[in-house]
């Protein structure tokens, strides 16, 4: 069994939106390699509380890699040093004794820091509200088998639909672009026959909202896809571009 470790944490602390914030160093002692990263933070926080200090605020919920709540920048990378996982799925065995870990919130103008490592990602919700849906009301749906969908299309759609909305793409991108997030939703829907009906409206509305929120534009560095915990492919972004270009020329106003 691997030995427990002592680590140094350099953590961003910021009281609230208005506070300027700064880094603070903490010791994480006797860290078991079988702890998850968030459990390590739990333990540090318990110690801080006992010392009468303010614990580190961090968003987290399901702790199994699907809710998309957790997400911090660890040693220069979103969700830490491994690929295709979220912060909660990162285990301390991937660090070594004596290491310093720099922990920062997502940095993007569109994701203002609320406290410490917690940022406001409501911009994502507003983008979905602008067009990330199929306009069907409850009731009236035809039989689920009325429109056959090829297995390929279904799988391809699901590849994009797996996005958990964590924001790692924005955090990783040097432009803080949200293209992977937006295109994942647009691609998920347009790859299905049900989603093709309002494809133009959707592409235009989602992109317009994305720009309004202040995200940067995509310059194809592919950092987003490389850091995406669900491995969403760049083909989603290409698809959104096609959708958007066609929509601009096709819609009547």
């Amino acid at each position: 069994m691997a030995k427990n470790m002592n680590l140094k944490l350099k953590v961003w602390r910021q009281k609230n939106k208005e506070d300027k914030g700064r880094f603070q160093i903490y010791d994480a002692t006797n860290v078991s390699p079988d702890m998850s990263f968030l459990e390590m933070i739990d333990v540090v926080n318990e110690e801080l509380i006992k010392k009468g200090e303010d614990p580190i605020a961090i968003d987290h919920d399901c702790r199994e890699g699907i809710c998309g709540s957790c997400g911090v920048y660890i040693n220069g990378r979103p969700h830490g040093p491994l690929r295709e996982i979220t912060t909660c799925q990162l285990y301390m065995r991937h660090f070594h004794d004596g290491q310093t870990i720099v922990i920062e919130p997502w940095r993007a103008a569109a994701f203002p820091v609320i406290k410490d490592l917690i940022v406001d990602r409501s911009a994502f919700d507003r983008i979905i509200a602008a067009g990330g849906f199929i306009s069907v009301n409850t009731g009236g749906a035809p039989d689920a088998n009325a429109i056959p969908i090829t297995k390929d299309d279904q799988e391809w759609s699901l590849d994009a639909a797996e996005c958990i909305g964590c924001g790692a793409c924005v955090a990783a991108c040097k432009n803080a672009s949200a293209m992977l997030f937006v295109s994942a939703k647009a691609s998920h829907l347009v790859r299905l026959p049900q989603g093709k009906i309002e494809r133009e409206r959707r592409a235009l509305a989602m992109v317009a909202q994305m720009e309004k929120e202040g995200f940067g534009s995509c310059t194809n560095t592919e950092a987003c896809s490389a850091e995406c915990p669900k491995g969403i492919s760049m083909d989603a972004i290409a698809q959104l571009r096609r959708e958007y270009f066609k929509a601009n020329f096709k819609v009547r106003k």
Partner: protein
Amino acid sequence: MGWFIKFIDSSLGKKLVMALTGLFLALFLLEHLGGNLLLLINDGGEAFTTFSEVMASPYNIIIRVIEYGLFILMFYHAVNGVRLWFLNKRSRGQAYESYNPSANSTLFSRTMILSGSIIFIFLVIHLRTFFFPYRLGDAPGSMYEGVIEAFSDPVYSGFYLLALVLLAFHLIHGVQSAFQTLGLNHNKYTPFIKGFGIVFAVVICAGFASIPIYFLFRSMSGGM
């Protein structure tokens, strides 16, 4: 028309403009290289001079139009690129303390503004050496003689080579990125496009580089 301007000035539109102008510029590079390689023929510059005279002829209307287009697009490509860079920088806000981008992206893709800027400076110098004096001005002698003179200067040739390496960097990302920007991404073909982009960049870079190297060595070995 309002919708069109809005479209090409949207974040996706701006990038589309970068891709289209970029691809056009890449095509021009190919044409330019073809002409320049004539310099390597050991005919005292005859073939090259003929070629440049045809290209420079005021009666060659198509080429004249393309030439104006080229200048406009080159300028647009540069200005648009700088604008994008500024806007994107603003989107980040506060910078990261610890930043390890090499883990998720290539150096080429992240440094387009840098490689582009140096290429732009190079272009200005390049035009001042060749295009303005020989095409617009009344420089004595032929362009062929101008080339020999310019490249016999090791400093000038060295800068030229540096710019070409950066041009290759710019193209390695630029070519494949242009296809992605046009929405052309496919599991099967994208690896080929990426490979093609690298080969294209290397060929362009090596092709152009061969000329200063050739003339530099020629001048150093004293031959004419």
